[in-house]
């Protein structure tokens, strides 16, 4: 599988001279299987540039972890939406109250956006992602609820040779006191178990988190602890706080590496690509 990070920022896009190294686009990760199956994980502002890379109409599946604005804001600027021969499937977390179309339409309609979902030129199909496993082309996807305000899932994706867990918005620490010790009682463990690559929320320093308990996000140490508990081989910290410039993210990465015994840690950087399975590598 090829995994490309198109947006690694959380909460709100943060372009500018101080964020050039890690990037300012919000959450978007592209996964391509060997058979050409394409999954796009979340539609933050990073999805805009993804759309420009598809020369010919094709099927694209967009998997949304949840519907907070930083994860859907790029949808309206995803160029394939406006090309009739594209087949686009959007998957989102199930809700007990409304289907995905109605929930997305709150953003994808006036006055918040001038285009309505029904007016999109592409062949659009919306799905409530089943909690559990399902297949999309050559990839097996597992969706599981995670701790975050509102209906939110994480995704685990495998091609049979390698695996990726994508949990960009997650606050497992709501359910433990200091650090997780029991995988049965730690949100996200099943998703991250023995994965080759774990992309996980690491928005806050410990001092910041103390003032933001319940906001739905993790300290860097929480991401590291979950990676260790679940046996993930490599952790990519993600959903960088918009107030953290490149220098601060470098420092947070060093702290994470100092604590990450047995887990390789990288800080998610826009444009970063990973090749999983076979000779795994990243740039």
């Amino acid at each position, binding site marked *: 599988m090829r995994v490309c990070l198109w947006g690694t920022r959380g909460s709100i896009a943060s372009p500018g001279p101080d964020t050039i190294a890690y990037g300012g686009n919000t959450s978007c990760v592209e996964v391509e299987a060997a058979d050409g199956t394409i999954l796009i994980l979340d539609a933050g502002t990073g999805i805009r540039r993804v759309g420009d890379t598809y020369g010919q109409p094709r099927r694209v599946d967009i998997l949304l972890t949840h519907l907070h604005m930083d994860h859907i804001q790029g949808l309206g600027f995803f160029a394939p939406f406006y090309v009739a021969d594209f087949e686009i499937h959007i998957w989102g977390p199930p809700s007990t109250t409304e289907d995905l179309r109605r929930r997305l339409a709150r953003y994808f309609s006036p006055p918040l956006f001038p285009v309505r979902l029904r007016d999109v030129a592409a062949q659009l199909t919306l799905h409530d992602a089943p909690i559990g496993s399902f297949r999309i082309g050559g990839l097996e996807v597992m969706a*599981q609820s995670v701790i975050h305000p509102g209906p939110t899932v994480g995704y685990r994706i495998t091609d049979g040779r390698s695996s990726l867990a994508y949990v960009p918005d997650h606050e497992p620490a709501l359910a433990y006191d200091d650090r997780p010790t029991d*995988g049965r009682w730690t949100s996200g463990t099943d998703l991250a178990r023995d994965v080759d690559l774990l992309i996980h929320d690491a928005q806050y320093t410990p001092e910041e988190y103390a003032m933001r308990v319940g906001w739905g996000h993790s300290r860097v140490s929480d991401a590291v602890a979950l990676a260790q508990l679940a046996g993930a081989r490599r952790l990519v910290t993600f959903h960088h706080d918009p107030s953290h410039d490149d220098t601060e993210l470098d420092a947070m990465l060093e702290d994470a590496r100092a604590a990450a015994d047995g887990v390789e840690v990288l800080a998610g950087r826009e444009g970063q690509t990973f090749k999983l399975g076979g000779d795994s590598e990243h740039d």
Partner: protein
Amino acid sequence: MAQREIELILFRQLASSLALPILLVDHDSDLLFFNEPAEVLLGQRFDDVGEMTLDERRAVFAFLDQHGNPLPPDQPPLVVAMRERRPVHRLVSLRGFDGVYRALEVTAFPLLGGGGHLIGGVVMFWERAGQQAGR
């Protein structure tokens, strides 16, 4: 062993921080956890007992109604709540791990997830002040 559903994870954490006695079961009614205030009324520490299957729990606990009559196996509040997918409130006497009967007021309710699927069940209970247990 597979991770518990997040609703159970969060409820266990909530129960750990409350002064109200709470007991938590999974969708098979196997005992997952009871908090410190519950330990007083059940007569044993959770760390000493651990998780228990429904059958193991049935061998330990015994229920009497408020008149001192044994409750049939299908009538304890949590059993009714899980079966009928609704809250149940009742006065009972409960024989706990220590063999002692205590007069309790019990509220039990099912934990229902999206689509109505049963995740588990919760029992909140407290001792009825000044009440004598059935036996």
